[in-house]
């Protein structure tokens, strides 16, 4: 176990540097003339250009620039947006509502997915099973740019069941519709994985043993099968976080939830390059850390997995 953790950490370091390097190289390398871009139409004196070049380390070689970028990331300095606000401050005011939205989405999705997944896993081939398979296929195929505006239009504007937009102090009720939309991104995968895990575990030896001991059906499924079936579902969280981040950009923009995704979408709209890069860098780091934790959790949860 210890060796696994060490190896996984080393891998994570490599991935971390690789991923941040990719983001950095894609945004900053070979820019035409960032100084002129900063100044816009105005002419720039040679003096000013020299000062700016030095301040932003533009005269240094590429790898040295990457080093400064990394130093910024590791010390919590993610740069300043074109509006003059520090990225980290914007992040700080934006993340609580995004976390709230994300948690709601995960909880709703997991509850529905596990319940429906267990039922269709037990009754394979039933009407319920086939219906959920068709529904999950449709949900998997619905892009969030379709789902979010249509949900807002139908349930928010026409039927008026939910508030169509959220505000800074959004209550749980305000966030319910966006959370449902966001949760639908991950619900289909979770459901299918639960279903196949339950179906597989039902055929396993330990379930036969439990039945032979005379345990009730409820206990066999609720304790023995469920506990083992949830392991693969837990590992999905890592992948899901990436999907939720992407989904949050569109969902928050459509429902006006002033969170991380909303700021990022606005930054794209206003051509605020530093904001986009800063936010993306932070999100990539979060994504990597969560995936590391999930992998470690997986190894801890499942005793069958022994990594050497």
């Amino acid at each position: 176990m210890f060796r696994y953790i060490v190896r996984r950490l080393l891998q994570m370091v490599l991935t971390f540097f690789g991923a941040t390097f990719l983001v950095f190289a894609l945004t900053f390398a070979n820019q035409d003339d960032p100084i002129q871009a900063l100044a816009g139409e105005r002419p720039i004196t040679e003096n000013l250009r020299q000062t700016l070049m030095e301040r932003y380390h533009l005269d240094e070689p590429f790898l040295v620039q990457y080093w400064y970028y990394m130093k910024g990331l590791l010390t919590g300095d993610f740069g300043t947006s074109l509006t003059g606000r520090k990225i980290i401050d914007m992040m700080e005011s934006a993340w609580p509502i995004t976390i709230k939205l994300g948690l709601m989405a995960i909880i709703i999705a997991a509850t529905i997915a596990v319940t429906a997944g267990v039922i269709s896993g037990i009754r394979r081939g039933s009407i319920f099973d086939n219906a959920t398979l068709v529904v999950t296929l449709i949900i998997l195929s619905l892009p969030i740019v379709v789902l979010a505006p249509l949900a807002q239009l139908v349930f928010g504007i026409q039927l008026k069941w939910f508030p169509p937009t959220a505000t800074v102090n959004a209550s749980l009720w305000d966030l319910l519709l966006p959370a449902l939309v966001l949760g639908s991104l991950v619900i289909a995968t979770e459901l299918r994985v639960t279903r196949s895990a339950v179906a597989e575990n039902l055929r396993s030896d330990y379930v036969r043993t439990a039945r032979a001991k005379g345990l009730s059906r409820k206990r066999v499924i609720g304790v023995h099968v469920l506990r083992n079936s949830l392991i693969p579902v837990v590992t999905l969280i890592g992948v899901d976080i990436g999907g939720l981040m992407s989904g949050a950009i569109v969902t928050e923009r459509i429902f006006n939830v002033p969170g991380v995704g909303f700021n990022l979408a606005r930054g794209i709209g206003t051509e605020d390059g530093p904001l986009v890069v800063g936010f993306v860098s932070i999100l990539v780091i979060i994504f990597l850390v969560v995936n590391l934790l999930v992998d470690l959790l997986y190894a801890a949860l499942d005793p069958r997995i022994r990594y050497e």
Partner: protein
Amino acid sequence: MSDINAVTSAAGPSTQPQTEPKHAGRGKKDKPRSLAADAWADLRRNKIFWVSSILVLIILAMALFPTLFTSADPRECVLSRQHAGASGSALFGYDFQGCDVYAKTIYGARNSIEVGVVATLLSGLIGLIFGLSTGYFGGWVDAVLSRFIDIILGVPFLLGAIVLAKRFAQDPESNGVLAVTVTLGILGWTTAARIMRSSVITAKNQDYVAAARMLGAGPGRLMLKHILPNSIAPFIVVLTILLGTNIASEATLSFLGVGLKGDAISWGISIAEAGANARTAPEPLVWPSVFLAVTVLAFIMLGDAVRDAFDPKLR
């Protein structure tokens, strides 16, 4: 990205009825069928396959010959008919700019399909090369390229796409088709490469490969003539599903403003533009959304059906 992973990794969802005796009856009892023939026989009886193929054909026709479906010009916009309702000449009414929504929706298919197909081919090419070489050579080639894939997967798909698309879209004159295509192509190949790698590893240990090697076939011949034809089926299935998700990603990027732009017609742009006025005029929002959803669904269903047919283990 998560969509593809979801569809390919979630094992067991065969949407068709379980048909046990594959070879029984049908008159030709003893004639062995190849995998492709078997899969075709299976597909022919699958309703989802037929529905999705017909949808795909209609969408392709829309992309290739939009004039078959509408005679109106999607770029002819008259402000005086802003948000005018549906009529005989404009089936879905007019949008905020006074453009014909039906014509715009029909013409939107072309960019979606074009970006989707070319990006998928690009991803397929990269994935094929990476998957074949990592699977065949193994060892350090495999280790290095697998780490590289890990690094790419370390960046959530849409975030990477936003950064990359912004990077490519420096030229203000272009309509962004090339930028989006390259972006999606560069980011989308990882799953395909992994699938290819694993099926190559299975195929290369087969007896016929050993036999061919003993007959003196070199690595190139072994890979292209013997291993590739026997390991390409799952790869093609992944690409079909990827085509669907690429179309969705194009719309998402265009929606966010880093995809197609300018006077390009795209379902994503239409959805973004119509969203603000959905309260007064829902039609310009609804129809592009429906077309986009049906297109993506058609390709993913097709991929799903073909996957079920080609992978007997999932039955």
